[in-house]
């Protein structure tokens, strides 16, 4: 009998995996009619709240008052879903006012009102701009409000970085910068929603500026218009959405445990350095062994996926529990077979931000008759310019510490990484519609490994410490291949 070829046994394995694709470590409870029906009863709601509250306590380090405020808000939105938007707005206001007590001890000289005043001022500015853009859509501002807003924020930061204020004035001005940067993309989304259908009230706009479920500088999950679309309208939808939220929170906790053990094993027990440590040792002339450096860069790829999954899942879990059926931020990134698919799956809401504010505007306006050039141009607008802009502004404190020019120049590795990523994603999009090979090896495994290899290699240039120049990082990159230049 002829022995089975490698492709035939891998294909058999692939077929077996596909036939068992319905297996779930955490069962799909939202598809069980009995569970959904129970989740709609008063007792079911209490059970769900209890389970979610316990998980939320375990998964986050918020402290008891914050936990009580958030879970109290969720309890009200669960039992009074018709008043969800108002309840969320009140919950957020209470969280904002909590800052009075939270930050009070770190500000000397009786300026405890600063964080609250700054945040409220920025929210007021955002709501006013939104109202103006809706009220006067044909004005210069109304036609291009996002460009006005983003360039206004940039000018504000540049002016303060050039003024280099010190003392109490410096404290206030830089605090204003931090507040503006914190709300920058939330307000941009509000302005992007200016053309959405007329609404009875703007409570959701207010709630979306400061989501109670948390976020990073990137709004999860986008703005109020999107929230309206994904909001649970009926009791059964709410039950399903909350069950999905509970399931996602369970995932976040599971992955957090994996992350903890991962770090303990690889970095503690095996002593593999982080990429930052490996590069610092290399720069000092005492580089770790080559296999350790490679291990460090391979590990960070998976660690970033874990990190994004853990915090992204906990935020989206809370968003779902509040009654909004948002998509996950990270969804099976390792199954991606193209670079663009990975980019879409690893950090969905950041990708959406780049698409909304950079890709689409460039795509609609330029090179309409030349499809390929149009895609490449729009991709560079988003992934090179947009991504660089986002990170340069987000890390405003480098302007404060290093000055404007040095602060921007310290990002040279990021600019290089973004340029490489933009070029690769352009090619990936242009090749997207090609027929993919079938079978596990050629259709799934090899392309997935290719995606991982690209990101592992390109991420060597992601220097979060901003310590090294591009030339130094390039030398380090070559040293990974035993090329010493």
């Amino acid at each position, binding site marked *: 009998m002829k022995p089975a070829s490698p492709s035939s046994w891998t294909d058999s394995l692939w077929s077996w995996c596909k036939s068992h694709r319905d297996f779930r470590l955490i069962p799909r409870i939202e598809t069980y009619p009995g569970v959904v029906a129970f989740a709609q009863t008063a007792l079911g709601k209490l059970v769900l709240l209890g389970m979610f509250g316990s998980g939320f306590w375990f998964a986050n380090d918020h402290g008891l008052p914050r936990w009580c405020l958030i879970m109290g808000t969720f309890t009200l939105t669960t039992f009074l879903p018709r008043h969800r938007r108002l309840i969320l707005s009140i919950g957020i206001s209470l969280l904002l006012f909590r800052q009075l007590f939270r930050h009070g001890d770190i500000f000397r000289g009786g300026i405890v009102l600063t964080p609250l005043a700054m945040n409220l001022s920025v929210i007021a500015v955002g709501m006013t701009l939104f109202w103006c853009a809706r009220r006067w859509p044909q004005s210069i501002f109304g036609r291009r409000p996002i460009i006005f807003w983003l360039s206004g924020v940039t000018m504000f930061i540049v002016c303060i970085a050039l003024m280099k204020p010190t003392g109490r004035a410096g404290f206030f001005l830089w605090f204003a910068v931090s507040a503006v940067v914190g709300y920058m993309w939330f307000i941009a989304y509000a302005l992007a929603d200016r053309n*959405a259908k007329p609404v009875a009230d703007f409570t959701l706009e207010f709630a979306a500026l400061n989501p109670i479920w948390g976020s990073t500088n990137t709004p999860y999950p986008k703005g109020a218009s999107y929230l309206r*679309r994904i909001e649970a309208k009926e009791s059964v939808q709410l039950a399903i959405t909350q069950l999905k939220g509970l399931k996602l929170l369970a995932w976040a906790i599971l992955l957090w445990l994996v992350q903890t053990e991962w770090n303990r094993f690889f970095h503690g027990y095996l002593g593999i350095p982080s990429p930052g440590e490996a590069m610092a040792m290399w720069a000092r002339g005492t580089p770790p062994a080559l296999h350790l450096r490679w291990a460090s860069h391979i590990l960070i790829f998976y660690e970033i996926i874990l990190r994004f999954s853990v915090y992204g899942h906990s935020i989206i879990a809370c968003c779902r529990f509040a009654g909004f059926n948002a*998509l996950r931020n990270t969804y099976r990134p390792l199954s991606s077979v193209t670079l*663009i698919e990975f980019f*879409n799956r690893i950090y969905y809401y950041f990708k959406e931000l780049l*698409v909304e504010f950079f*890709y*689409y505007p460039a795509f*609609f306006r330029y090179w309409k008759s030349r499809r390929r050039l149009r895609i490449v141009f729009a991709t560079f607008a988003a992934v090179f310019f947009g991504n660089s802009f986002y990170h340069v502004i987000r890390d405003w404190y480098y302007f404060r510490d290093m000055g404007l020019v040095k602060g921007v120049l310290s990002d040279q590795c990021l600019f290089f990484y973004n340029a490489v990523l933009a070029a690769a994603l352009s090619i990936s999009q242009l090749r997207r*519609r090609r027929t993919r090979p079938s079978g596990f090896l050629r259709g799934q495994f090899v392309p997935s490994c290719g995606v991982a290899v690209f990101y592992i290699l390109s991420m060597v240039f992601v220097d979060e410490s901003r310590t090294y120049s591009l030339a130094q990082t390039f030398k380090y990159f070559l040293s990974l291949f035993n090329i010493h230049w």
Partner: protein
Amino acid sequence: MNAKDEIRQFVQKLLTENGDDRPLADDESLLSSGRLQSIDAVEIITFLEKKFGTDFSEAGFDREQLDSVDAIDALVESIGPPKG
């Protein structure tokens, strides 16, 4: 074949290319549900520009307008081909 049929056929083709063989209702959400991605929206935009002469740079763009076959059809009807 009317405009809506052509739109439905194109969207169905996009879904099939993404490995999604589930049936499609005209009012079913495409982007909010995650069945189509932003890059697929780009494909739809290119299709609408070519097929119906829709000019988004003039009309403005809200992704909600591409979120279902019904919504796309309504968009095409409301914008229409470019003037002049």
